[in-house]
C-alpha cells in the first residue's frame, strides 16, 4: 500500500471496509455463526461502557423520580390510607372467593392453572426509533433466555427475544415494524394479527369489515402463533377506520408503556394457559 497515491489508498480502505460489512450483513441475515460471534465479541468488549451509561442513567432517573415522588407523597399518603382500608375488606372477600373457586374447580375436575416459568430481567438500554423498537436485557443464555422466548411485563406482552448471548438478550418490541403477534378481541372472539408500526401504535390486521370491534376493546394474545402464551394483554383499540378495503384499519395502543420499562419477565419454558379468568371467547 506504500506505493499507492493517498487518495487511492483511502479508496482501497473504503472498498475493503464496506465489503467486509456487506459480508457481515449478509451473514447476519442468514444467521451465520461468524457474524453472531463477532457481534457477541463486540457486545462483550463494550459491555462495561454500556453498563456504566445505563447505571448513570438509572441514577439520574431515580433522582428525578425521588424529587417528583416527594412532591406528591404527602397527598398520596392520605389517599392510600383510605385505599388500604377499602382493600383490606376486599382482600378478605377475595380470599374467601379463592377458596370457593378452588373447591369448585376440584368439583369440576378442572386442571389447576399453571403460570409459565419466567426469569425476571432488567432493561439495560432501549431503542424506540421509527425503524427499530427494541431493548436489551441483563439476562442471557446463562439464565435460560433463548431466542423466540416471549417477554412480558405487568399488564401484558412486551415482545420477543431475537438474540441472546451469555449474559444479555435483545428483545424486539411489539411496536417494531418487523413484529407480529396473534391476537383476539375477548369481547367478541374475533381473531387477527397485531403488527408493529414503528411508532407508539399497533395495527390489527386480517379482520373482516363486519367484525364486531369497537374503540376501547381490549386485544389479548390468542396463543395461535405458538410463541406468545394465551390471554396476555396486547393493547386497546383506539382508532377504527372503515375504508374501501376488505379489512377495517384498527389501531391499538399497547397495554404496556414500552417507553418506561425497567423490569420484564422472560418466559423460559413452553407456553401456558391464560393467566386469569380473562377468558377468550369462542370464535364466532
Amino acid at each position: 500500500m506504500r506505493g499507492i497515491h493517498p487518495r487511492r489508498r483511502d479508496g482501497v480502505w473504503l472498498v475493503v471496509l464496506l465489503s467486509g460489512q456487506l459480508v457481515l450483513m449478509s451473514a447476519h441475515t442468514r444467521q451465520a455463526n461468524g457474524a453472531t460471534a463477532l457481534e457477541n465479541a463486540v457486545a462483550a468488549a463494550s459491555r462495561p461502557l454500556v453498563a456504566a451509561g445505563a447505571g448513570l442513567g438509572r441514577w439520574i432517573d431515580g433522582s428525578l423520580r425521588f424529587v417528583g415522588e416527594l412532591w406528591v407523597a404527602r397527598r398520596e399518603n392520605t389517599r392510600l390510607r383510605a385505599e388500604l382500608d377499602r382493600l383490606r375488606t376486599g382482600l378478605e372477600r377475595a380470599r374467601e372467593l379463592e377458596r370457593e373457586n378452588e373447591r369448585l374447580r376440584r368439583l369440576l375436575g378442572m386442571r389447576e392453572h399453571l403460570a409459565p416459568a419466567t426469569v425476571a430481567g432488567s432493561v439495560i438500554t432501549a431503542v424506540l426509533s421509527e425503524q427499530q423498537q427494541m431493548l436489551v436485557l441483563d439476562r442471557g443464555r446463562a439464565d435460560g433466555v433463548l431466542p423466540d422466548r416471549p417477554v412480558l411485563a405487568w399488564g401484558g406482552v412486551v415482545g420477543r427475544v431475537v438474540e441472546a448471548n451469555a449474559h444479555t438478550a435483545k428483545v424486539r418490541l411489539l411496536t417494531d415494524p418487523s413484529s407480529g403477534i396473534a391476537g383476539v378481541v375477548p369481547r367478541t372472539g374475533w381473531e387477527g394479527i397485531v403488527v408493529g408500526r414503528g411508532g407508539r401504535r399497533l395495527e390489527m390486521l386480517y379482520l373482516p369489515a363486519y367484525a364486531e370491534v369497537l374503540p376501547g376493546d381490549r386485544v389479548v394474545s390468542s396463543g395461535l402463533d405458538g410463541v406468545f402464551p394465551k390471554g396476555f394483554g396486547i393493547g386497546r383499540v383506539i382508532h377504527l377506520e372503515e375504508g374501501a378495503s376488505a379489512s377495517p384499519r384498527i389501531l391499538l395502543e399497547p397495554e404496556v408503556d414500552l417507553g418506561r420499562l425497567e423490569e420484564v419477565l422472560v418466559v423460559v419454558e413452553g407456553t401456558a394457559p391464560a393467566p386469569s379468568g380473562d377468558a377468550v371467547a369462542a370464535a364466532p
Partner: protein
Amino acid sequence: MRLLAAAAGLAAALGGESLAARVAPAAGAWVDLMLLPVAWYGLQGRARWAMGVGCAAGLLHDAWFRVDAFGLEGFKKTLLGWSLASLASRFDLNQAVGRLASGMLLVVADQGLEWALRGLLDVAQGPWRPWALGMRALVNGVLVATVLAGLDRCLRRGEKSAARH
C-alpha cells in the same frame, strides 16, 4: 495517542447513547451520538480516520442497538465518514455553519442509506415522516456544531497551557 483519543471518543459516545436510551428512550431516538466522532474526523478531512471510526462506531451501535442486520450501521457510518472527509478536503466545513450543515446532511444521508439498505436486505421499514427526519437533522446538526465547538475550545486551551509551561 491518536488511537487512544479515538477510542475514548467512541467510548464516550457509546456511554452517552446508553445513558440517553436509559433516561429517555423516546428522546434517545432523536440523537445519534455515534455521529459525533465520525463528524470530528470527517470535518478535518482525515478520510481514513473518519472511515475507521465510522466503522467501529457503527459496529458498536449494531451490537447494542440493532436486531435486524449486524453491519448495517457500520456500513452507513463508514461511507458517511469517507464522504464527509472528501467534502471537507474541498470546502472549509470546519466552522460553525459548516458543522451545523454537515451534521444535518449526515443525518439525512444516514436515513437515506438506511432506507436503501433495508430495502436491499428486505427488512421491514418504519413509517416515512419527513417532519421527524427534519427535526432529527436539526437536533443532530446543532449537537455536532456545539459539541465540536466545545471540543475545539478545550483542545486549544490545552495547547495554550502546554505552550506556557
